């Protein structure tokens, strides 16, 4: 089976690229190894659409996405992606926290982002549920959050509607070159698919697939955990984080709270199926209740875990590969690839079509590790 562009990986990155290509009339074939589309980080993440706290190399992508795509994404995808732009509060309670937040804030402000330090009282004016423990915060009014399940499945739904060919349960194990350029994707079931361009967006697994054409991207799998509560009446709409990064989260349009957790043991998780540990949710509940005492009676209904593709220098590789013409890499998102996904999908389609990209990608090249 042939297509102009083959995409390996049906997470939000692969589905968003498929959407833009199909919209431009390019024939696309997307291969996903799992039985379920979007079964990786894309449907397991905390939904943050943040500029604050980002590495400056990633800021142009997220600023582009927030200015140009997120506000109209629900219409584009005919799916309510629950995008909510009510700012990000990153909270602190000690002088060390204040120093961390000041560092993050001044680096981002230097890149032109509207983010500033505020006092505990100013934070409580923005969010009256905050406890007296909070003594400082950074505030970025243009940050926000969205629903990762709806955004991922929405891109998939629209790509499919626009004619992208999508197959799940097809695990790619090898790429093959013909006359010096990558052309074939071979799956575990022995099927061979052929295309002019191959976009590799398979999360951490991209490392093994890229190695079959001699390319290595230094990545590691790291486990992240999340919980969700019962739905309650609306309390506040900001995205929340902490200086220690021990939890982050928000209240959804549905009324539930989604919190991402950090126990510190993430890089040491057992390989295989991502499993919630018994300690992370409990530890996060203690952190959340310290800053939000009024959430102590709210009921946790579900918790889950997911793998992130942690790159050696903590930003993704979004790049063509000189030694392997036809290959485009999109991996190493290091636990913050959801917010930038709409911009990444767009620039991947532009790379594949040989157009100039909407955002300069030179800081995210594959050969920067040499």
């Amino acid at each position, binding site marked *: 089976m042939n297509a102009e562009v083959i995409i390996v990986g049906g997470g939000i990155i692969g589905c968003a690229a498929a959407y833009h290509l199909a919209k431009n009339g390019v024939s696309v074939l997307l291969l996903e190894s799992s039985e*379920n589309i979007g079964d990786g980080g894309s449907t397991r993440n905390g939904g943050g659409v943040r500029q604050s706290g980002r590495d400056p190399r990633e800021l142009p992508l997220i600023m582009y996405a927030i200015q140009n795509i997120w506000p109209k994404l629900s219409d584009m995808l005919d799916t309510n992606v629950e995008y909510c732009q009510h700012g990000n509060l990153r909270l602190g309670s000690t002088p060390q926290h204040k120093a961390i937040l000041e560092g993050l804030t001044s680096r981002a402000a230097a890149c032109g982002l509207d983010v500033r330090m505020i006092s505990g009282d100013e934070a409580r004016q923005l969010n009256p549920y905050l406890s007296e423990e909070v003594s400082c915060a950074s505030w970025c009014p243009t940050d926000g959050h969205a629903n990762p399940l709806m955004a991922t499945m929405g891109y998939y739904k629209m790509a499919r509607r626009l004619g992208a060919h999508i197959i799940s349960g097809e695990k790619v194990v090898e790429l093959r070159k013909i006359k010096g350029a990558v052309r074939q994707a071979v799956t575990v079931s022995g099927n061979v698919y052929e295309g002019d361009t191959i976009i590799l967006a398979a999360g951490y697994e991209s490392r093994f697939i890229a190695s079959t054409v001699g390319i290595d991207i230094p990545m590691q799998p790291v486990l992240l955990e999340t919980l969700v509560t019962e739905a309650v009446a609306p309390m506040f709409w900001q995205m929340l984080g902490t200086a220690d990064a021990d939890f982050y989260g928000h209240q959804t349009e549905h009324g539930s709270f989604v919190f991402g957790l950090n126990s510190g043991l993430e890089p040491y998780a057992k390989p295989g199926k991502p499993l919630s540990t018994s300690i992370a949710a409990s530890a996060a509940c203690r952190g959340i209740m310290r800053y939000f005492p009024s959430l102590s009676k709210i009921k946790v*209904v*579900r918790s889950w875990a997911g793998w992130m593709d942690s790159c050696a220098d903590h930003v993704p590789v979004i790049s063509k590969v000189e030694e392997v013409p036809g290959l485009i890499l999109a991996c190493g998102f290091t636990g913050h690839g959801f917010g930038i996904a709409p911009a990444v999908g767009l620039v991947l389609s532009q790379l594949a079509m040989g157009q100039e990209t909407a955002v300069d990608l030179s800081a995210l090249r594959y050969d920067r590790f040499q």
Partner: protein
Amino acid sequence: MNDRNRKLKPFVPQPDDDLIVCRCEEITKGEIRRAVHDGMFTLTEIRRYLRTGMGLCQGQTCTKLVKGIVARELGVRPDILEPSTGRAPMRPIAMEVLAKDREEKAT
């Protein structure tokens, strides 16, 4: 291998499409049938797209019903559809209870 572009029978409105199937999240039979035609071919995808079975009862009531509806829409036997994963804590637990996972001596 699951080809997401294979042809389904056309979507035909049914008289009981307004029937609520997932009571916790108030999802109707018609919404589930529509979602299948929008490409949600697995029970996990249906759950993620519509929130069926993600409410307080965690799907104890509607799981079988949803499975039947999806299978009929796809024209397959219900038993070939993989169930979606159960998630801890299985029964809703208040944060203040979950937070006390270890005995702490009074200080």
